Each structure stands twice: as C-alpha cells, then as structure tokens.
C-alpha cells in the first residue's frame, strides 16, 4: 500500500524540535495549510480549522463552537433543573424516595434513544438541523413541567426533557467537521465540558430564580413552576440562533453542498453496518458509560448525599453539588488536551494510556469518596473524582473520531447513548433502593468504574498499535479508512473524504516517523 515517505509535511514532523507545545494550534509543516481558502483561521485540506481561537466568534469555525456548546449547556440546564428544586417539588407532588429515584433514571434514559437517532440524523441531514430541531422541539417539554401535578407526570416530563441531551452528539459531530484532527481532542473536550457544566450551573441558577420569583409574591408551589420558564426560553433562543447563524460544514450547508455534488450522499444502512461491526465502537460505548455515566449519576445524588451524611444546609449542599458539575469547565478540556498532548509524542497509544489512567483514577477516588468520614476529606475526594471522570470523558472523544470516518455520527451517538445507559443502570443498581446506603453505592460505583475501564487495553489499531502492542508494519491509515467502503463504492469515488481524513490523521503515529528525512526528488504517492 502507499508508503509514508514523501507525503506532504510528514517528514518535517519533529525534525526541528521547535514545534509549539500547546494544543490550540497545529503548525504548518505538520499539517499543510490550504492557502486557497479564505477563512479567518488557518485551515487544512478539508477546510477544517487548525487553530482554536477561544474568544473569537468568526464564521464559521469559532461561531459554530460557541453555538454548539451553548445549546448543549442549555439542554443540560433544563434536564437537571429539577434536581436542586426537589425539596419543594417533592412536597408539592407528594413524592416518595422511589418516585424521585425513578425520575432521576428517567431523566437520563430518554436520551439513550435520542442520541442513537441523532447520530444518524447528523450523518444524513447535518448537525445544524439536528441541533436546532432537538432544541426547539424539546422546549415544549420544559414548559410542560409547570403543568405537572402527580408523581407519574413528574417522571414522564423529566423523561421527555432528557431527550434533549442528544445535542451532545450534534455538538461533537459539528466540532469534528470544523476542526482538524490534531486539535479535535481539545476542541471536543472544551465544547462538551462547557456544555456539561450546565448540570452544575443549574444547581445554582434554579434556586436563585426560585427565590427571586418567591420574593415577587408567589407561593412556593407556584414559584418553582414559573422558574422552569427560563430554561424553556433559553431553548427557543438557542434554536433560533443555530438556525440563523450556523452552518454544517466550513464550506456551507449540507443540503446546498450535496446538491452541488461536493459531498457524497451516504446510505444509512451501510453507515450503521460499519459502526456496529467495528468492535472498538462497543468498547467505547462501555467506557463512556463509566465516565459520563457516573458523572450524570453523581449529578443526581451528590447534593442529597452531602445534605444527609454531613448534615449540611440545603444551599450549602447545592453549592458543593454545583462544584462537582462546574469542574467540567477545566477538567474535560484538560482530558482532551492531555489526549492531544500524549498523541504528539506517542500517537494513538498515548491517547489510549491517557484515557485508562484518567478513568481509573476517577474510579479510585469515587471509592474513597464513599469511604470518607469527614467533610473536608469527602469534598477533596469528590473534586479529584470529578476531575478524573470528566477528563476521561474528554479523552474518550479524543479517540472516537479515529475509529471511523464514514460512521462517525453513528459511533458518537452510540457512545453518547452508552453514557446515559451507564448512568441509568448505575442509578438503578446502587441509588434507587434502601438496600445500599448512598455511601455504599458510591463505593460500589467506584469499583465498577475500575473494572469497566480495563477493556480499553483491547483496543488495537493496525496502523497505530494499542496499549501493549506495537503497530503492524504493513498497515496504513488509507487502508484502514478505505476498508469501510465496498469495491463498488470505491469505484464511485465515495471514499475521497476518507482519504483526505487518512492523510490528516497520519499524526497519530506519534514521534516515530520524525526520523525519516525527505528524499530530495520525492513526489507524493497520491493526491
């Protein structure tokens, strides 16, 4: 198959030893810049940005970033908006402990299904429509909260609001169409992490809104209902912004480009087949269930845990709960950054080791959190647990874009669904019955995290290797990504985007390819 000698830029990798160390940009020799493109940021051959300029809103790359993460943040706010108000809601609706536990499971279960569907929608219709449709169609479910008058209604509405968490998939997918693979870990980690922060922010926002509304004269049982209008309005505002300001790809919108013939339309059946038959997909589904999954479960139980075990006042327990979720501001981007940084030196093998270390660390500190008897120790362990679990989420999505180019959407969707499934399962097993106290539940959850992270050792890429095995000498990126198309499809030229992607993903070999100098008369083996 095509060798790597002479492929544009690769021979310069690491030679000067003076590459910038931070993961917010990719220097030109490493990934060639497409100088014909007219964008605000330097772009590669697919017109994906090579640089991540955080405080810019320039179209399309950075604007997409901000639209995407804020939409996802809004959905997290509305999904977990009930959690800090449970003490009022449980009195208004006469809820029992199992009603509250069931509602917690329901709030994360709805999106198992919607994330799977969203993956397919992104592949076929584009992330812009996916995001806008979901955000605006879930706004009525948020407004429905003010109509609820029974335990059944409460569980049903939380289930429906939970569907909106599928914006995670559109967010990650949209990022990977806009940003180069060398910085995708950091970008995805930041976008998703800041979105996840919504689960922490809501523990601060909703009680404040409730207090303000009560001060204007409402009774408590009406005030919490009015408070839910604010997340509902946020949904509508973000949906309109995404529709008017967003675009699917750096060069335009999916339907316009498909009509122009620039982007080949794909078949859902084949996309699904290649996702499902790749064993790495399923390992990452499990892994994400025990990084994101435990984060969601903890979001639902941690305030109550501190309130009961350490006899804290509700607002103080809420602040601690918010801290857990808000750690996402830095923890998840850090995970993506750590993944990208380790890839610089060790390629994909570095990414896999980083993921294993971070997630296992999270599991150990979850176990210790359950065991902690004093408040300062418990808070310290909780913070380290949150950093480990959330950074692991970021590191997971540093690897997922490389599992498949063709079925990226479906695999993202499956992994996202796995996250929620893990959360629902963990809450059901350890936090919904009186069989285990909450501290025992946390201990067992920690043990389960450590065990369910071990399968990452089985993930092997022929061209890059795995945690313990080196790459095969004859394997190449082109071969791996072209294998997703049949002979017929290759004849039709459907695999061209995958070839471009394969070229750009060469960086996952790590420093090893640095030593080969460029032969003076070399021409590239492929265009």
């Amino acid at each position, binding site marked *: 198959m095509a060798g790597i000698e002479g492929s544009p830029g690769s021979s310069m990798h690491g030679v000067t030893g003076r590459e910038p160390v931070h993961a917010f940009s990719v220097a030109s020799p490493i990934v060639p810049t497409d100088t014909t493109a007219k964008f605000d940021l330097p772009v590669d051959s697919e017109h994906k940005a090579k640089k991540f300029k955080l405080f810019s809103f320039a179209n399309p790359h950075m604007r997409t970033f901000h639209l995407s993460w804020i939409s996802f943040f809004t959905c997290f706010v509305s999904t977990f908006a009930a959690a800090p108000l449970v003490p009022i809601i449980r009195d*208004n609706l006469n809820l*029992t*402990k199992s009603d509250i536990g069931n509602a917690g499971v329901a709030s994360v279960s709805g999106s198992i299904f919607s994330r799977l569907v969203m993956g397919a929608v992104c592949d076929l219709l584009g992330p812009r429509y996916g995001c806008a449709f979901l955000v*605006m169609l879930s706004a*009525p479910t948020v407004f429905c909260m003010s109509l609820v008058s029974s335990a059944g209604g409460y569980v049903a509405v939380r289930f429906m609001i939970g569907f909106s968490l599928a914006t995670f998939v559109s967010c990650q997918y949209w990022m990977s169409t806009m940003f180069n693979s060398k910085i995708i870990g950091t970008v995805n980690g930041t976008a998703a992490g800041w979105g996840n922060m919504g689960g922490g922010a809501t523990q601060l926002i909703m009680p404040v809104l409730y207090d303000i509304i009560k001060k204007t004269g409402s009774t408590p049982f009406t005030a919490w209902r009015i408070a839910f209008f604010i997340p509902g309005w946020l949904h509508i505002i973000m949906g*309109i912004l995404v529709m*008017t300001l967003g675009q699917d790809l750096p060069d335009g919108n999916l339907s316009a480009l498909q009509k122009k013939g620039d982007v080949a339309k794909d078949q859902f059946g084949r996309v699904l087949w290649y996702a499902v038959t790749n064993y790495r997909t399923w390992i990452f589904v499990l892994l994400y269930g025990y990084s994101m999954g435990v984060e969601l479960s903890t979001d639902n139980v941690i305030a109550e845990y501190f309130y009961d075990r350490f006899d804290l006042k509700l607002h103080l327990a809420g602040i601690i709960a918010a801290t857990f979720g808000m750690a996402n501001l830095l923890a998840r981007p850090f995970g993506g950054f750590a993944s990208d940084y380790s890839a610089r030196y060790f390629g994909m093998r570095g990414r896999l080791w980083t993921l294993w270390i971070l997630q296992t660390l999270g599991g150990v500190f979850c176990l210790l959190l359950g065991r902690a008897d004093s408040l300062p120790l418990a808070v310290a362990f909780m913070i380290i647990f949150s950093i480990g679990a959330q950074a692991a989420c970021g590191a997971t999505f540093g690897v997922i874009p490389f599992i498949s180019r063709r079925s990226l959407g479906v695999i993202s969707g499956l992994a996202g669904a796995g996250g929620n499934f893990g959360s629902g399962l963990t809450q059901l097993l350890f936090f919904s019955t009186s069989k285990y106290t909450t501290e025992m539940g946390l201990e067992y959850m920690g043990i389960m995290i450590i065990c369910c992270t071990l399968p990452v050792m089985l993930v092997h890429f022929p061209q890059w290797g795995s945690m313990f095995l080196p790459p095969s000498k004859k394997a190449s990126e082109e071969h791996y990504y072209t294998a997703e198309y049949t002979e017929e499809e290759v004849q039709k030229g459907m695999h061209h985007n995958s070839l471009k992607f394969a070229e750009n993903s060469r960086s996952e070999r790590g420093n090893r390819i640095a030593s080969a100098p460029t032969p003076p008369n070399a021409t590239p083996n492929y265009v």
Partner: protein
Amino acid sequence: MATNACLVVSLWISCLLATTHAATFSSLQRTLVLTASPQAGQVLKAGEDNITLAWSLNTTFASGIDSTYKTITVELCYAPISQKDRGWRKTVDELAKDKTCQHNIVKKPYTSSNTTFTWTVRKDVPGATYFVRAYALDSAGKEVAFGQTTDAHKTTNLFEVEAITGRHVSLDIASACFSAFSIVSLLGFFFMDKRKAKSSK
C-alpha cells in the same frame, strides 16, 4: 490548691457533658394538654381552612414542674403514613436531627392557664396526614416538655391537609403559547431554508 484544681476540672467536665448532652424526645415529659379543632380524618384545605388550638398545663403533675417553661412553640407534624419512603421527614430521637415537625404554627410566651390560637393553614403546607405537637422551651430555647393531639404511637386523631396544586390557568396558557411559538418558528425557518436552497440551485 489541689481541691481548686479538682473543682475546676469537675466544673469543666460537667460543662462539657451539659453541652454534648443533646435533647432527645424520649427524655421529654408529656405535661401539656393540647387540643385541635379538626376531627379525626377531616380534610382541611390549605390557604382556606382554620385550625383552632388550645393548650394548657396538665394539672395532674406536681406543681412547679413548669418552672423552667418560658415559651410554647406549636408545630404541625407528619403522621407515620406520610413519613413512609420519605427519609426527609424521618423521626429521630435526637431533637436537633428530628424531622417530624417541619411547619411552625405559632410561638408564644408560656402561661399556665388555658391559651387558644386560630391558624389558617398556610399555602406552602404539603398535602399529607398530620397531628399537632407543642413543645415547652426553657430560656435557652431547649425543649423541656411537650404535648400532642395524638397518642404515643401517633395513630389516633390524625387529620389531612389538601394542598394547593400551585398550578394556575395563566401558567397553563403561557406554557401552551410558548410551546406553539417554538414549533411554529422552527418550521418557519426550516421551510425558508429549503426555499432558499431550491432557489440557489
């Protein structure tokens, strides 16, 4: 010198014991007689109906037992059926941690003669089964005696409160309007987009 030291140490130990000795419900004597107007099984509407309470000292006890009573605080308390599966209403002997009585009705200075009070059930009282309990507090605010409208097992003379739903017609209408706006504007933008794409072909 030695006796001085002993005195100081014993004083210090007794202070310590006094502060760490938390008040428990089982240590309280039921010296107050408390009656409430609701009949057993009656349903009261929150925000509308009244409860009339009357309390006095039970004269069968030795006189002087009420020498430490400074204030009476009357509370609305959850009956066992409303505590089931609801750990946040749990009865615990240590009074500082007890969650049985969460709604204060009135706090008045103590007099040994009969006192009455009429209370409108507040709008934030949840729908549940209740009884009424009065605590006598000493000058430090610590509970020293109690009285309640039910028996020791909290099974007799319980009444219900029907809470407000918290829903309003105006909220329902606002919900419907905003939901409709969301769906209509989504479809509006979608079709506008499609038309633009067709015309740019």
